[in-house]
């Protein structure tokens, strides 16, 4: 803001945004130094729900850590499943049947759509519009029903296993998913007409909340945040894993660097995910969903392994160090939102409080994933 001129130090005050504040969507605390309504300094304070997931992983067998993965990013749990089973499969040299890989991608993409829908509702809620949230939840409910029929749970999924998936799909899954894709495609124009083209929303997001490409590189921001700043980086395209190379999809990139660009990236990603799901359903091969020769007790060979996947929020990487025993020697998780939040302090300097909160909403924070 050009109108912002820094006052004397004694004219500023400290405002604690959180740990319980409606805009932080969880127990995040941001220590703001304010000059009137302008933010002079912002310091995110973490640690309110730290649960030592990495240390927990080092204290249990490889398989016992599986349920933990769904409890970090609870909105895109299947991508976290995917990252962890992939790295262990890479370490232990387990081959996955093709049908299982297809089911992994289809369910993970459905989960991504549900995550983006929830973000869409919650973001407009941050901007003061209440109604889109309930419409988005209505659509999301269909995904949860579909995933419940396959995985048995509705939020903290633990569906993937080393060497495949836990359960094959039932007869209703394919027609149900196709019906859902049609339903959501019919609804997206409504969302765009009612929300995206709303003059107030456009005024609030366009040319507000700049995050430059350099800033993204500096802080390691990934996912829709960096794609909204013109960086074309998507793990699914650039470090392909699973069956993503066989899929035909685009990576939406906007280079306006503003909150609206990040909004548009996610809205376009919903359509791209629907394309991936559709192709997956078309090509879905017959066969087993679990590899046959998976040892009961997994003991990967000594070594250092890394695997990254693209979650709804960006690049999630798992690094495991194995000493050849039945527990990991070291488990390191690289979560996307931690990096995305880190740039908030620099990005929101000199911004007004409502604009900074719009910026924070456009980062799509999931606090349990930041505080693992």
């Amino acid at each position: 803001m050009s109108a912002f001129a820094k006052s004397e130090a004694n004219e500023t005050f400290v405002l604690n945004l959180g740990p319980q504040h409606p805009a932080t969507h969880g127990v995040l605390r941001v220590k703001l130094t304010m000059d009137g309504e302008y933010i002079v300094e912002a310091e995110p304070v973490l640690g309110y729900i730290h649960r030592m997931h990495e240390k927990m992983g080092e204290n249990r067998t490889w398989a016992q850590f599986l349920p933990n993965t769904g409890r970090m990013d609870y909105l895109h749990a299947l991508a976290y499943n995917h990252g962890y089973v992939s790295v262990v499969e890479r370490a232990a040299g387990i081959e996955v049947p093709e049908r299982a890989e297809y089911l992994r991608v289809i369910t993970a993409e459905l989960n991504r759509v549900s995550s983006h829908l929830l973000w869409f509702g919650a973001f407009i809620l941050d901007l003061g519009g209440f109604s889109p949230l309930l419409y988005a939840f209505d659509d999301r409910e269909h995904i949860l029903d579909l995933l419940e029929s396959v995985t048995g749970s509705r939020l903290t999924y633990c569906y993937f296993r080393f060497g495949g998936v836990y359960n094959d799909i039932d007869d209703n899954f394919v027609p149900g998913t196709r019906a859902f894709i049609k339903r959501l495609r019919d609804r997206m124009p409504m969302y765009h007409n009612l929300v995206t083209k709303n003059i107030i929303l456009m005024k609030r997001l366009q040319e507000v909340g700049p995050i430059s490409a350099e800033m993204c590189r500096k802080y390691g921001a990934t996912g829709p945040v960096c794609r909204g700043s013109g960086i074309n980086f998507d793990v699914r395209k650039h470090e392909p894993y699973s069956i993503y190379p066989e899929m035909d999809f685009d990576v939406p990139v906007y280079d306006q660097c503003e909150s609206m660009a990040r909004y548009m990236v996610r809205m376009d990603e919903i359509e791209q995910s629907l394309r991936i799901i559709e192709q997956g359903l078309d090509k879905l091969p017959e066969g087993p969903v679990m590899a046959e020769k998976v040892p009961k007790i997994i003991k990967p060979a000594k070594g250092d392994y890394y695997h990254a996947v693209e979650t709804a929020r960006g690049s999630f990487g798992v690094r495991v160090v194995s000493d050849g025993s039945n527990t990991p020697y070291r488990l390191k998780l690289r979560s996307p939102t931690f990096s995305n939040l880190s740039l908030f302090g620099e990005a929101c300097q000199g911004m007004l409080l409502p604009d900074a909160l719009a910026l924070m909403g456009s980062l799509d924070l999931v606090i349990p994933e930041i505080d693992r």
Partner: protein
Amino acid sequence: MHVDPEIIRLLAFLVGVIAFAALNAAYLVWLERKEAAHIQRRIGPKEVGPFGLFQPLVDGIKLMTKQLIVPAGVDPVLFKIAPILVMVPAIMSFVTIPFSETLVARNLDLGLLVIFAFASVNVLGLLLGAWGSRNKYAVISAARVVSQNVAYEIPMLVTVVTLVMITGTMNLHNIVMQQQGGFWHWNILNLSASPLMPVAFLIFFVCMLAETNRAPFDMAEAESELVAGAFTEYSGMGFGVFFMGEYANIVIGASVATILFLGGWDCPLGLFPGVHWFLIKMYFLIFTVIWIRWTFPRTTFYGLLNLSWKILIPISFFNLILTSAMLKVF
């Protein structure tokens, strides 16, 4: 014993006005919840009574039986006086509003002025409550409320001055009487006085939204930014009285818009004028206010001030000059 019938009439009206304000405040909450629910494809309150109609009573009992908490560190006098300062002026404004040709508590020659004078006190109540709370969110909210109200009172009053120039009176009863005889006589369509009359109504309506702190201009509460703004430290009936005041202000705003622009109790086709037409028009405006709240996201504070200073004020002044020129020429 002889009692002056005028005193009885005034007492009856006083009770009636208070009851009307309180009933509206309670049932507008019900309407708001029900309407929001249907906009969002939910059902809304339905458990207490038919269609959830007794919900406001239950809510009222709940709010009244809650402990009145005065947090440590607040200014106790300001903290307690602020909700009353919002509620009382709103009820006072009802005194001059003519609901029909005969149904008016006090027909004052300066009725319009009285209403705007009382409407300005509302801001003071919010400011004192927020300041007395000693809460940073509340103080930010108070600063917003004051500058918002200063910005929006100007186009609102300029529009009203334009209207007073046309009607030549500030007596609300006379203003309505001039608009009798069908919708083509109403001030909103009084194009011979000024071709911008529909725009003037729109300006008045937008300013009314801003004055009553309704979405998309609800900067004072802005729950995703300021938690609850000026009301952050309030709970129980302190909060309840604030909200009754807010809803009473909406009723006042809709009533004044009905009287000034929509012909008060006049029937659109000139048949059967009466209090029912007044209520229909008033509740339609209130319905629209609620409709807007659940459709639009919130504007930002600077967007709000820009709208007032750069768009509404120039247009309303242009309308004022145009109207005076037309009055002079024709």
